[in-house]
């Protein structure tokens, strides 16, 4: 009974994260599906050679459409970096959401497998059968996981038809789909946070945009620490001890802070791990976690103007080298 009460803050945080994850996932799936008179809200339509945004459609040849996608992705990465910074990684990133789905829902609730996280000298009941079925469930989930990604490039009804036909009409696309699916499976089981720390473009951009006002989780008071090691235990990154100081691998998921608040509930009102910046400003706004309000808005505005300018130039009808009959109504 006591324990359950103690874990309140952590549970609240988990619930908040799950709600956010559900909302983000649904929004990401719905975004390319919303259409009006066959023009989508956002679609890099490689099937009909169209760039569709905000219910406008422009005919664009394939190489330029690919460039538009790259520019768009860079803009999204920069804008999130300038606003949510690393908060994005722990809460909004689709890869983190998928990983949490595996560790918390499939392993945790469905098959009830406890994992040795960062604590050695702990006897853990190995459940080979449950683990096997958990991996199979993960396989099924990763088979479906790339679908929303592909919906951004091919209209979903056409892509679903192709999927249901077993990619007979487009074997190369099928291979690509399979490769992404297999990669996600391997990513969640083997690479884990290696990708987040060393390969993810978002993290790389984050690493080079140094700013003293950038927020991260930091350990504040050594003397008040009761050395329960719960923060290390809940941390999703293997071998990360937040108490040793700032670690670039930290994805700012906030689990350590929530668990710390629970452990110190009787002693202190604030946890030892707080979302702070190098200047010591605690609990800043999540949205403006990169720099001051004015700087963030300026950077976002500049990025958006440059991005929209680049995309408008690329999507210009002067660049067309051929037109498709399906796009006749666009001209």
């Amino acid at each position: 009974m006591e324990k359950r009460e103690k874990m309140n803050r952590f549970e609240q945080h988990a619930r908040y994260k799950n709600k956010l994850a559900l909302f983000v996932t649904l929004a990401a799936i719905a975004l390319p599906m919303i259409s009006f008179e066959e023009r989508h809200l956002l679609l890099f339509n490689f099937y009909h050679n169209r760039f569709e945004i905000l219910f406008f459609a422009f005919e664009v040849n394939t190489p330029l459409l690919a460039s538009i996608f790259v520019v768009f992705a860079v803009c999204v990465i920069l804008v999130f970096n300038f606003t949510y910074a690393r908060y994005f990684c722990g809460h909004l990133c689709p890869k983190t959401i998928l990983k949490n789905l595996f560790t918390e829902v499939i392993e945790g609730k469905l098959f009830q497998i406890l994992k040795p996280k960062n604590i050695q000298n702990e006897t853990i009941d190995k459940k080979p059968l449950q683990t096997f079925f958990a991996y199979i469930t993960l396989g099924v989930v990763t088979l479906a996981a790339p679908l929303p990604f592909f919906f951004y490039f091919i209209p979903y009804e056409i892509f679903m038809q192709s999927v249901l036909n077993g990619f007979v009409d487009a074997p190369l696309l099928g291979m690509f789909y399979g490769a992404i699916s297999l990669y996600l499976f391997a990513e969640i089981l083997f690479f884990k946070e290696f990708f987040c720390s060393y390969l993810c473009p978002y993290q790389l951009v984050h690493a080079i945009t140094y700013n003293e006002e950038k927020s991260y989780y930091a350990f504040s008071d050594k003397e008040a620490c009761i050395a329960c090691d719960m923060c290390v235990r809940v941390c999703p990154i293997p071998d990360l001890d937040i108490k040793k100081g700032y670690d670039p691998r930290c994805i700012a998921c906030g689990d350590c802070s929530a668990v710390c608040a629970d452990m110190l509930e009787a002693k202190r009102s604030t946890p030892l791990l707080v979302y702070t910046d190098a200047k010591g400003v605690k609990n800043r706004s999540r949205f403006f976690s990169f720099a001051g309000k004015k700087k963030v808005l300026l950077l976002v505005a500049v990025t958006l103007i440059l991005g929209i300018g680049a995309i408008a130039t690329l999507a210009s009808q002067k660049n067309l080298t051929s037109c498709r009959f399906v796009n006749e109504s666009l001209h």
Partner: protein
Amino acid sequence: MKQILILFSLMFSLGANDLYELLNHDKKELSIVLFYTKWCPACQESVAILNEIHKKFQDKIKIIAIEIQSQNTSNYLVNTPLLFASIPLSREEAAHYGLQESVPLIYIFDKELKLIKKQNETPKKEYFIKLVTRLKEGFLANGTLPIEQRIDLWKKERK
């Protein structure tokens, strides 16, 4: 050659739009067949480029344009006037000549009506200029010498 014969036998079957006769009549060094539409900006650009080519190499290049007819004629672009002959054709009819999902479609034939190039995008002016100079200097369309004039240097050096 066989493929071209098949292509042109298809053309014969159409009767009314006898492209083969058009190509065969008054043969020039190069013949260009352009499939275009009025609504496509890339086609309009192609027409503009071919107009320039026509002005420059009137005696060397013959251009036949084929306009693909469309049902809705409401929102057409401002059209570039053509300086060469144009034949209206429906999309189904044009499909017999190899027109697929996109325009412009361009065929380039040499003097013996052998296909040099088929391309599905706006042509480049420089390409035609290069092609004309190559043919003038006795090279093949791809820039190499004809087979009987080639010297296999590596064979000579071996001996």
